């Protein structure tokens, strides 16, 4: 290794280390200041809570035995919504890819639906489907599926024309064109859409749980705010943060595994 390369690597590593350090340090700093302000009574812990109390609340929730249940409910609903969104958006994208006319007809409606705040549909969902899990899951699907369809179908449409032409020359059927060219060219776009969908589904599920639920993290937060237990609210938020980090890292590792 040359001297210059060594120097470069050293600088590079130092930079990476610095970034990691500041990331961790700033989190600790914020938590520390929050804790201190609470301990010395500069802030009203009744409405702000504080880190160590949040930690204790989470541990207690664990011990009482129902936190796992709430996490499982939210996580389960999110995953169901996530899978349905994935399948539905790929299927609809295939349909839109196959029929240019359908895609042109539907395009303005997709755009309008996309900008509609889906939470406004909440009351309708509850009346139509009932105040149950189904409504919550449908809410999450509605939030994520349209963006997902839009990005996947744009990818499908931009598939390299020459590759499709080659397959047609060999006499490929529409299905074979999808299988050999359109879908594999868009692995990256599909995985990316999935990445966004995990986040959107979690948002949708919590929103749904706010509207109607008897369990789940959204329910915990809502319950906490109703009884004015800010420790519980903050704990719920922290758990949501952890869940979303978890989902993101699962998708990222799948992405690396796919090598696309």
């Amino acid at each position, binding site marked *: 290794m040359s001297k210059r390369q060594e120097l470069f690597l050293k600088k590079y590593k130092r930079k990476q280390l610095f970034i990691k350090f500041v990331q961790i340090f700033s989190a600790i700093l914020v938590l520390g200041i929050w804790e201190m302000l609470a301990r010395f009574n500069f802030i009203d812990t009744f409405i702000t809570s504080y880190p160590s109390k949040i930690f204790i609340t989470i541990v207690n929730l664990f011990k009482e035995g129902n936190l796992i249940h709430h996490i499982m409910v939210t996580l389960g609903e999110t995953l169901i919504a996530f899978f349905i969104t994935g399948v539905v958006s790929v299927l609809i994208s295939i349909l839109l890819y196959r029929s240019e006319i359908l895609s042109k007809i539907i395009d303005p409606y997709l755009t309008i639906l996309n900008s509609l705040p889906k939470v406004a549909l909440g009351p309708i969902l509850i009346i139509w489907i009932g105040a149950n899990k189904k409504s919550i899951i449908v809410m999450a699907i509605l939030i994520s599926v349209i963006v997902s369809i839009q990005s996947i179908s744009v990818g499908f449409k931009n598939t390299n024309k*020459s590759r499709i032409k080659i397959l047609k020359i*060999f*006499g490929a059927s529409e299905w074979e064109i999808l299988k*050999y060219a359109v879908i594999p060219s868009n692995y990256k776009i599909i995985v990316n859409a999935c990445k966004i969908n995990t986040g959107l589904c979690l948002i949708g599920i919590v929103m749904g749980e706010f509207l109607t639920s008897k369990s789940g993290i959204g329910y915990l937060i809502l319950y906490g705010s109703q009884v004015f237990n800010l420790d519980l609210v903050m704990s719920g938020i922290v758990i949501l943060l952890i869940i979303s980090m978890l989902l993101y890292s699962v998708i990222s590792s799948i992405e690396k595994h796919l090598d696309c």
Partner: protein
Amino acid sequence: MNKILSVNNIFKSYNNKNGEVVAIDGLSFDVFEGEFLSIIGSSGCGKSTILNILSGLDKDYEGSYKFADGITPSYMLQEDALFPWLTVLENTVIGLKIQKKYNKENIDYVKHLLTKYGLKDFMDTKINNLSGGMKQRVALIRTIATKPNLIFLDEPFSALDYQTRLKVSDDIYKIVKEENITVIMVTHNISEAISVSDRVLVLSKRPSRVKSIYEIQLSNKTTPINNRKAPEFQYYYDKLWKDIDE
């Protein structure tokens, strides 16, 4: 020589809401077994359109064409259009899979072709690790894997740099001659057309029809690179140049 394709009075126009563009009007020519025929013309004169019609991709035209019995055409495009997520071998057998000819005998034939044309050690390599010239060779082997006896080449070298281009045109010439395949090549490059072809067909400006046909007779005709040194080369070049320009 046997006639393997006759093209009869083809008419093709492109219509859109701003009007109609007639691309081809009254195009007729014949192709004979074993020959290398180039079709040249200025850009935008509908050269690729002809190949799209002959390969059955474009069915929206008037007139007719007829292949002799047992002629199975295949087509190689300007871009290599290979699939980067597949290996070299997987890319070259894709036509076999689609045409339900994916059996041991044909796979062995493809492996034999890859070996013969210097890609043996790259069979399990992903496409992106190959050079431009190698990619073009892979694309040609994919085209001939289904054992066609006629292939269409659409500007097959134009995406390559000059050095590679000469080398690849030599390679491809060698391959089609050895595998005994008739070729119709579309190009706008006059030297390339002279150096590889038995006959060169010049198209008129749009709407295109046959303007003239030249039999290329070079003394000691060998490989395309050597053919460029033939004394008659310049003569044909000037003639073709004038024909295209007028």
